[in-house]
């Protein structure tokens, strides 16, 4: 029963967080010094076309409507929340009219997910394993070296490492492509191969940096755990070192790491966006960038809202996974 209560309250927090995020996104533009409608008009005017005052007014009215900017602030807000929450409709993209924003997003999202999820999980698993082994035998030279390397890698932002990697592997040695250009139609072998090839550098940057992260924290975790009483008792029972490591230390070390994972999701998403922009990777980040460059307000609102929802949901999922691994929560 207690478990159900925990899940329920976590779900509630999820909903509240999304509402909070969407509200922030809704209100932030309201504080901008530029009226988006006027900005659009200015852009159209600077594009060289000439419009009569009545045409300008008509355009202004339709833009105001498209932006949902008519009516009182409260009614706008209500309409916005209702639209997004119930239908997921962010309206048509302004730059690529009339393609709906949601379809653009649904094409980009799998790319971001693929990149983020695989590299995150890979780095988490590897990092935890390596860190645990290093923490178990902290006096070995290999452990010290690993930790030293991890410490140097961890603070480096992904894109810096990505830059370094792309300098080395794209510019100096022409192994990997400079920007993403995927060949082939979806899901043929050529397509998959091309996707993997193009994703290697961005994924590698994320994996290497995040790996360093987890090595450090799981090594610290393991060194503390190794001093715990139940580990000492397990040793006194005559259990072999490997048994203690895999059955006693690992399951206990992973628990806080799952919690940390939840906390890092937002940060890793940030990193992924930058990566996509730098590498021209066709994911959500790239879409956001395009939206800015083209002043596509609807697309911008849509992608940003989705970022918030995605991160909140991913955090929720990881949080909900935790009881699966910790019997103390599962059976109160």
């Amino acid at each position, binding site marked *: 029963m207690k478990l159900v209560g925990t899940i329920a309250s976590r779900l509630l927090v999820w909903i509240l967080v999304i509402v909070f995020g969407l509200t922030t996104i809704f209100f932030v533009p309201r504080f901008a010094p530029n009226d988006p409608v006027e900005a659009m008009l200015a852009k159209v005017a600077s594009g060289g076309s000439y419009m009569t005052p009545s045409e300008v007014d008509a355009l202004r009215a339709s833009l105001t409507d498209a932006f949902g900017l008519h009516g009182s602030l409260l009614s706008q807000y209500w309409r916005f929340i209702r639209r997004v929450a119930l239908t997921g409709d962010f309206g048509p993209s302004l730059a690529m009219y009339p393609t709906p924003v949601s379809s653009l997003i649904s094409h980009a999202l799998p790319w971001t997910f693929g990149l983020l999820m695989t590299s995150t999980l890979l780095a988490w698993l590897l990092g935890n394993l390596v860190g645990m082994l290093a923490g178990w035998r902290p006096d070995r030279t290999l452990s010290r070296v690993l930790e030293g390397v991890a410490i140097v890698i961890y603070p480096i932002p992904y894109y810096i490492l990505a830059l370094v990697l792309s300098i080395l592997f794209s510019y100096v040695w022409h192994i990997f492509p400079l920007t993403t250009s995927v060949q082939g139609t979806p899901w043929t072998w050529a397509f998959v191969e091309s996707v993997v090839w193009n994703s290697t550098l961005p994924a590698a940057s994320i994996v290497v940096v995040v790996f360093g992260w987890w090595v450090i924290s799981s090594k610290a975790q393991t060194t503390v755990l190794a001093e*715990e*009483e*139940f580990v*000492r*008792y*397990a*040793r*006194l*029972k*005559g*259990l072999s070192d490997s*048994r203690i490591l895999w*059955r*006693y230390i690992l*399951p*206990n070390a992973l*628990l806080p790491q799952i919690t940390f994972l939840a906390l890092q999701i937002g940060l890793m998403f940030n990193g992924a966006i930058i990566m996509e922009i730098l590498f021209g990777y066709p994911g959500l980040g790239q879409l956001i960038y395009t939206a800015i460059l083209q002043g596509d307000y609807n697309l911008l609102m849509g992608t940003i809202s989705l970022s918030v929802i995605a991160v909140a949901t991913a955090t929720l999922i990881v949080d909900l996974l935790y009881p699966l*691994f*910790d*019997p*103390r929560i599962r*059976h109160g």
Partner: protein
Amino acid sequence: MIALKGVRAGYGPDERFVAAVDNVDLTVGDNEILGIAGESGCGKSTLLRTLYGDFSGGLRLQSGAVSARFTDPATGAAVEREAQHFRDLWWNMISYVPQGSMSVLNPVMRVGKQIVDALPRRMRDGSRRQIRQRLEEFLAGLGLPGSVLDAYPHQLSGGMRQRVLVALAVFPNPRLILADEPTTALDVVVQKRILIMLVEIQRRLRNALVLVSHDLGVHFQITDRIAIAYAGALMEVGRTSEVFAAPQHPYTQALIGAMPRVGQRSQRTGLEGRPPSLTALPRGCRFADRCPAAQAICQQTEPALAPRGRGWPVACHFS
């Protein structure tokens, strides 16, 4: 049977060695309950670790010999080991009941698994189901329900956990069980159950049980022999009934004098002061400062633990 001869064990480098077990001679027989009593910090837990052969976490044997000799119940062959090589005896010939039941069990592993984990090879034949069957019967004999095997440590009460720890140590049918304060922090009712459990087990298995406790009442109830420890050394070692009837060492006398007894009306006397720090031991007898019968010689020469007066070893110049 485990014999300690002139054992000095403790922590730190030779120049600044802190001897938690200082020049101790002690023998544990094959079929008895031996109690080790004393105040906190007197080194009794370290003594237990030395008996177990657990020289980890900085503890080292500076001098003396620790030797073990058992008869393997399965083969009848003699098994002998010296100090640092007890490892393969663990949970086979000797086992350990630790203090503090919550943090001693792996919180994410079921209790049953933790018991099976430690089984010696001779007990592993048979299918999982058969082993489980045997475990359940064994637990029933100790008054524990079979459902305990599927539970996680946090789901059991403190008393139950302690009994599980005892069960864990007893199941492999070891020749020697070392129990470190097994009843501390438990309420009196549960204490009694555990004590009864320990005695019954010892009588049934006819092995040796070494019990460490600061509670003299526990020693009085179940031990055959008792060793009184003070500041790292043994003060008196003898048959429990005899020692309690006529304690020889002033420290023992004070400890027993402080115990409440039914029907006693006179004021109980305590002891002033506290034991010396193990890093700054006095030159003569370590109890001299607090001893009501101390004389000049007590401050100068440390009395050896040797049979005196009534026949059992006492470390005092005047008994």
